[in-house]
């Protein structure tokens, strides 16, 4: 009975390690494909950061399941926590820097929420109200003006209108 338990736990250990390593490799390849195929800095960044973090996290978790001892598990959990804290911060920093450098948006970008919200001199966010619904000409200045072939924000697309909630309706529902 005891021997059977030890054997089954060992096999479970092997299967868990193999599955975690394979999932990690799959997500790593997916991150690289997203980095190669996405059209834009920002979309490339979201593919690379999320899938890459998940892949590397699965592989470090596979190390924890393979050496099933307390110190290895604690250290690998430390690695995973550090990875999951620092990866979003790093990608946020690169995205902000890319927006300030003015790397071009994709032509099919529906809505640039940060348009005109940053002060170009001080790089600080200032209060910017959303333009009214159906406003064809956005008076706010764009940091990316003249960098895309199409206009960055077009309001005539029907499929992007549900994304912008009306602030009055949501507040009345909440209260």
């Amino acid at each position, binding site marked *: 009975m005891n021997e059977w338990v030890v054997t089954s736990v060992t096999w479970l250990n*092997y299967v868990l390690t193999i599955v975690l390593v394979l999932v990690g490799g799959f997500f*790593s390849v997916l991150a690289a494909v997203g980095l190669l195929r996405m059209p834009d800095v920002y979309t490339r*960044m979201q593919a690379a950061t999320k899938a890459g973090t998940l892949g590397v996290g699965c592989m470090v978790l596979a190390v924890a399941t393979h050496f099933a001892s307390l110190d*290895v598990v604690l250290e*690998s959990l430390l690695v995973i926590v550090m990875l999951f804290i620092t990866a979003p911060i790093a990608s946020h920093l690169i995205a902000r*820097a890319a927006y300030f450098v003015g790397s071009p948006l994709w032509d099919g970008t529906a809505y640039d929420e940060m348009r005109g919200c940053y002060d170009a001199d001080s*790089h600080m966010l200032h209060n910017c109200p959303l333009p009214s619904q159906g406003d064809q000409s956005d008076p706010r200045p764009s940091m990316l003006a003249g960098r895309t072939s199409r206009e960055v924000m077009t309001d005539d697309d029907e499929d992007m209108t549900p994304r912008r909630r009306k602030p009055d309706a949501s507040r009345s529902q909440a209260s």
Partner: protein
Amino acid sequence: MNASMMLESVGALPAQIETALFEGPIAIQAVLLIVLGMLALAMIGCLIRLLLGPTLPDRVVALDLLGMFAVAVIAIFAILIGRPVLLSVCLIMGLILFLGTAAFALYLERRARP
């Protein structure tokens, strides 16, 4: 028969390195070698994006992902050669990667300031 014998028969390892390099059951070793190949493919993709990225933030993102894959390769080797000490290398490498990316981002943003 283990994975170092397999590699030696292919010719990837010299004959002086005996079977002491890799440890563990053969199924795990085979899967780990396959995943190392997948990671090599992913790193080649990152390298292509690093070479032909149109703007500098593209290259910084590609470099970040390349460093994360290097952390993954070190984790795989920790299983493959049976030494969990390499997790410390993963930890330090992740920290240095974050510092490098943050430094690149700060440099880019300072350069964009008029």
